[in-house]
């Protein structure tokens, strides 16, 4: 297929710590097509952000990476850091999970939002500034001329989040990796984010959307992937996924939404250091059998992928 924009093959990331090695990402394989919105949902602490960082090559310095990441046929996981810097921001932009860490506290928000535009679109400072103001205004950060000159600590949590979205979508990238872009944002403004994402997507940009907001993922995505304990355990088109999630974890996760009465999945979250043997969900799975103690295969059913013995 020539339509593939990002191809992630057999990516694994481990991080050594005092208590042992964290298996943050295990054998991630998927691809994202041009203009596609691909959502990654799943457990907190299961390696979603680390996977995003692995693609951007922004992993913690002690992390060990293996596997291959290709962007438009170019193996970006093999580029030198200098070459990668050109890719970052221009071709792939990221909206980091924690705006308080991602924003430089000592630089005005407007300057930070304008930075990628100036660096990658080759436009003048004045142009970048007026574009920044327009973007801030779009996200209801008003009055933009005043807000643009403020520092991150003067913003409320949700405002800073929206400024990050403005920054990530500014320089017409081809792929945006957005980590929790809607947290701390009220529903009315969430629609603005949804609309700008759809506009950027219709201009030809693809998204890797990492989110806990199941409703947002449902409204936005073409395909959904579910992560559990370092592994992608299901990938499916949106409609069939929400109609009938296949993997027992996906089923349990969707059963825990507030609309269905907030029922947490029984049992503790697994350790990321001593990961459960065989199927990583087996200690909590209501359908487990003896064979679940060995690694389940990734099964393909009508174009969906699921990592579970039930479907083998």
């Amino acid at each position, binding site marked *: 297929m020539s339509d593939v924009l990002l191809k992630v093959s057999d990516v694994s990331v481990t*991080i050594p*710590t*005092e*208590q*042992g090695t*964290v298996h943050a990402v295990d054998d991630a394989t998927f691809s994202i097509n041009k203009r596609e919105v691909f959502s990654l*949902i*799943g*457990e*907190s*602490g299961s390696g979603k*952000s*680390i996977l995003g960082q692995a693609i951007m090559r922004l992993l*913690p310095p002690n992390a060990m990476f293996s596997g291959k990441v290709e962007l438009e046929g170019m193996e970006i996981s093999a580029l030198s850091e200098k070459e990668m810097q050109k890719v970052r921001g221009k071709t792939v932009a990221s909206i980091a*999970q*924690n705006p308080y*860490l991602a924003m430089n506290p000592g630089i005005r928000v407007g300057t930070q939002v304008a930075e990628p535009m100036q660096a990658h679109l080759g436009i003048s400072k004045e142009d970048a500034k007026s574009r920044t103001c327009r973007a801030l*205004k779009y996200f*209801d950060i008003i009055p933009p001329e005043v807000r643009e000159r403020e520092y991150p600590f*003067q*913003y*409320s*949590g*949700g*405002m800073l*989040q*929206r400024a990050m979205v403005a920054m990530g979508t500014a320089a017409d990238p081809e792929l945006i990796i957005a980590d*929790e872009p809607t*947290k*701390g*944002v*009220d*529903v*009315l*403004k*969430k*629609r*603005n984010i*949804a*609309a700008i994402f*759809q506009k950027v997507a219709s201009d030809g940009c693809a998204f890797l959307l990492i989110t*806990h907001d*199941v*409703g*947002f993922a449902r*409204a936005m995505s073409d395909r959904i992937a579910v992560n559990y304990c370092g592994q992608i355990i299901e990938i499916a088109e949106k409609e069939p996924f929400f109609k009938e999630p296949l993997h027992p974890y996906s089923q349990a996760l969707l059963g*825990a*939404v*507030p*609309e269905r*009465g*907030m*029922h*947490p*999945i029984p049992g*503790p*979250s697994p*350790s*990321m*250091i001593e990961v459960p043997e065989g199927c990583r969900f087996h200690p909590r799975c209501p359908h487990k059998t003896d064979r679940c103690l060995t690694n389940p295969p990734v099964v393909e059913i009508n174009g969906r992928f699921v990592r579970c013995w039930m479907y083998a």
Partner: protein
Amino acid sequence: MLKADNLHYVYTSGLIKIVKKTAVCGVDIEFCPGETVAIVGESGCGKSTLAKMLVQQLVPVSGEVFFNGMKLTGMSWKNRRKFMGKIQLIPQNPADVVDPRWTVERSVAEPFVICGVFSKEEISANVDALFAEVGLSVEHKTRYPHELSGGELQRVVIARALALKPELLVCDEATSMLDVSVQAFIVMMLKEIQIKRDLSLVFITHDLEAAKAVSDRVLVMYAGEIVEEGTDVFDRPLHPYTRALLDAARYMSLEVVVPEEIGELPDGFSGCPYYRLCRERTDACKKPQKLRDVSGRLVRCWKSK
């Protein structure tokens, strides 16, 4: 239990040209033991500022806060310290309470250390119990904040806030980085503590479904003011802003408000702050709006019946 009267807060910034920004204006609030209250409202409407005033992190420009009848505002820091463990805030930004140079274990232990009455063994046992309570394990304890996932760090902050057995816990977007299952787990855990100890819970959240599921009473804020308050706000919203908010949540539709169309309020405008966007506005809305009692519901809009 905790009661606040007529709280105001104004941020001032700028060195040469001083800019003043009113973040909270005239909020009266009261929490009862064992009650769960949700505060919802636009991003930037002053919820976090209000929360910080309630827990005495910010000194209100005017207004008073009482805890079990004792006036906290204006009390000396030394006297106030006795109450601080009793009123806890889980801040929106974890970095407000965890030191990046400390292991998270040390951050969670800090309240016990400050308290000064616990032995080393007691502290370490308490810290372990707290980690288990929020669903974290030994493997997370010795890490630094940047070595945890977003949701794991959020749970560290929750553990820290629970350390000294608070009577009132204000959660400012405390579950925004958790998956729905862990979020349900945390909420259930807090509810259990609530039943055991009559804890008052305040959830500041943008997740309206979650707010509806957990709360006994809902406060809706807009532009620094409470615009609606009641026990069945989600079933029967009265204020035009609340209605717009709930409609948007229900239909997650993509019809967006184009900012160009939003007029700005003229300087010195003292009428309804929602005037700018309200579909039902009339000239009468240019007058200041008071919170009115509409059959048991408080609403700041003259039209609501």
